[in-house]
C-alpha cells in the first residue's frame, strides 16, 4: 500500500511524523522545570511580565543573574526583550511591555511626564569608554577629557564608528560631540552603523576605528581594541527603571522594580562582574526620582 501511495501522500505522512517528533520533544523539555518547582512562592507566582530593556544589560550578562534570582524568589516569570532604547520605549508606549529598564535620562523623564510610566527609579550606573586601535593614531590617550579626545579624532580624521541607532549610547555620543563643538554627521571618517553595541564594536575592531562604548559590553567581548579614554564625568552612564502604566500586571511589575532597587537586587548588581573582570561592571545607586 505504501508503494502504491502517491508521492504527495507519502511526503505528507513523512512531514507529519517529523512534525510530531519535534512537537513531542519540545513539550517534554518545557514541562520539566515547572514540575520540579518545589515551593509556591507568593500569590503573584505564575504571573508573567515583559521587561523591555537595552542590549547592554542583556549582552553584559547582568540580567542572566538578576532575572533568575527574582524569578526564584517570587515565582513571577520575566520575559526580557533586549532592543535599542528607542525601540524599548516604543514597545512600552504601545503597551507591549510591563517594565522599562533603559539609559537615556531625557527620554525617561519624557516617558513619565507624558503619563506612560510611573515608579521611576535610578538603578545603577556604569561608565562609557572611548576605545580605539592600540596604535592610537589620533593620540586620544594623551587628552585630558573625553571632549578633547573626540576633538583630536575629528582633527586627524581618524575613523570613528557610531551606533547611529538612537540608542542611549548613541545619544550620549552625540552629546559629547556637541560639547566638543563638532558636527560629525556626513564626515568621511564618521561611520554611522545603525546597529547594536556588539556589532558596532566588531566593526570598529575590523576597521581599526574608534568608538564610544559602555564598559560592560566592551569587557564582555574579546577584541583588539584598547581603552583610550575613561573616567571623565561626562562618560557616566546612569540606568533607570520605570513601571509602564498600561501594564495589566501592575503588582508583578512593582514587585520586579522593588526587587531591583531593593537590598538583594542592588547587592547582585554591585557584585556582578567582580569574578570575571576583577571589578564590578555596574555601580548600584538606587534612588526614587
Amino acid at each position, binding site marked *: 500500500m505504501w508503494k502504491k501511495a502517491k508521492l504527495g501522500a507519502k511526503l505528507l505522512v513523512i512531514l507529519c511524523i517529523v512534525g510530531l517528533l519535534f512537537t513531542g520533544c519540545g513539550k517534554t523539555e518545557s514541562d520539566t522545570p515547572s514540575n520540579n518547582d518545589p515551593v509556591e512562592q507568593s500569590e503573584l507566582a505564575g504571573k508573567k511580565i515583559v521587561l523591555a530593556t537595552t542590549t547592554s544589560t542583556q549582552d553584559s550578562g547582568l540580567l542572566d543573574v538578576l532575572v533568575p534570582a527574582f524569578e526564584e524568589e517570587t515565582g513571577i516569570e520575566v520575559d526580557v526583550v533586549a532592543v535599542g532604547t528607542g*525601540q524599548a520605549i516604543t514597545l512600552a508606549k504601545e503597551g507591549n511591555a510591563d517594565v522599562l529598564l533603559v539609559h537615556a535620562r531625557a527620554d525617561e523623564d519624557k516617558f513619565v511626564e507624558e503619563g506612560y510610566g510611573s515608579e521611576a527609579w535610578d538603578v545603577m550606573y556604569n561608565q562609557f569608554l572611548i576605545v580605539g586601535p592600540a596604535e592610537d593614531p589620533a593620540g586620544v590617550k594623551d587628552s585630558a577629557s573625553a571632549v578633547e579626545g573626540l576633538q583630536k579624532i575629528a582633527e586627524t580624521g581618524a575613523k570613528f564608528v557610531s551606533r*547611529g*541607532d538612537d540608542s542611549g549610547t548613541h545619544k550620549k555620543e552625540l552629546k559629547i560631540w556637541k560639547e566638543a563643538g563638532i558636527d560629525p554627521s556626513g564626515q568621511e571618517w564618521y561611520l554611522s*552603523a*545603525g546597529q*547594536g553595541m556588539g556589532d558596532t564594536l566588531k*566593526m570598529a575592531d575590523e576597521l581599526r576605528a574608534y568608538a564610544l562604548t559602555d564598559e560592560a559590553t566592551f569587557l564582555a567581548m574579546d577584541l583588539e581594541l584598547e581603552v583610550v579614554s575613561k573616567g571623565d564625568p561626562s562618560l557616566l552612564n546612569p540606568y533607570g527603571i520605570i513601571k509602564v502604566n498600561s501594564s495589566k500586571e501592575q503588582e508583578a511589575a512593582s514587585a520586579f522594580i522593588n526587587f531591583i532597587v531593593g537590598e538583594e537586587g542592588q547587592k547582585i548588581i554591585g557584585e556582578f562582574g567582580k569574578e570575571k573582570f576583577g571589578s564590578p561592571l555596574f555601580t548600584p545607586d538606587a534612588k526614587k526620582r
Partner: protein
Amino acid sequence: MESLRQVVGMLISGDPDLYEIIFLSLRVSFTAVALGILFGIPLGAFLSFKDFRGKQLAVNVLYTFMGLPPVLAGLFVYFLVTRHGPLGKWQLLFTPRAMIMAQFLLVFPIIAGLSMVAINSKAERYVATAISLGANSQQVAWTVIKEARLGIMAAIITAFGRAIAEVGAVMLVGGNIEHSTRVMTTAIMMETRKGNYTLALALGLVLLTISFITNSLLNYFQREVRT
C-alpha cells in the same frame, strides 16, 4: 500615515539619501543574481544531463542550500573576509562586494536547483527528438535549455526575490553603514530598532513597490521570450 506621506514625499522630491539606499539595494541584488545565473544555470544543466556516482547526494545538498538561512550565508562570508580571514587582506568586509558575495551564496543554489528541475522536465521529450534529428550532445543540451527557458526565468525571479528581501546577511557583512552599505532591508531593520515602526513600514512598502516593478519587467521579458 504621516510617515508614509513623508516617505512618498521623499520619493517624489528625489531625496538623495533614499535613492542612494534604493540603488545600492538593486545594484547588490542584481549583481548577485547575475553571478548566480552565470554559475547556476551551467550547474543545473550539468546535474540534469550527466549521471555520476553520488549525484543524488549532490542534488540533496543543493536542495538543502536552497533553504540556507541568510545569517548563515553572512557568517560564511564574514569568516572569509574578516581581517584575519583567508581573504582578509583585500579588506572586503563592510563593502558592497561582501554583500554581493553573501547574496550570491543565497541565490546560486536556487538558480541551479530550479534550473535543473526545469531542464529535467523538458529533457525527456526533447532529447530523443533532437537525437533522432541527428544533433550532437552539445546541440541537444542547448535545445533543451532553450525549451526550459520559462522554468529558468521563474528560477531567476525567485532568486531575485530572495536577494532583495534578505536582511540578515547584508546586515552582518555590510554593516548598514550610512552612505556606504545601507540598503532597504537594513534601513527597515534599523528604523524598527529605533522604534520608528511607521517609518519602517513605509520603507517596507517602497521596497515591495520596487520588487513589484522589477518582477513586472522580468515577467514582460519572460512573455517576450515565449513568443
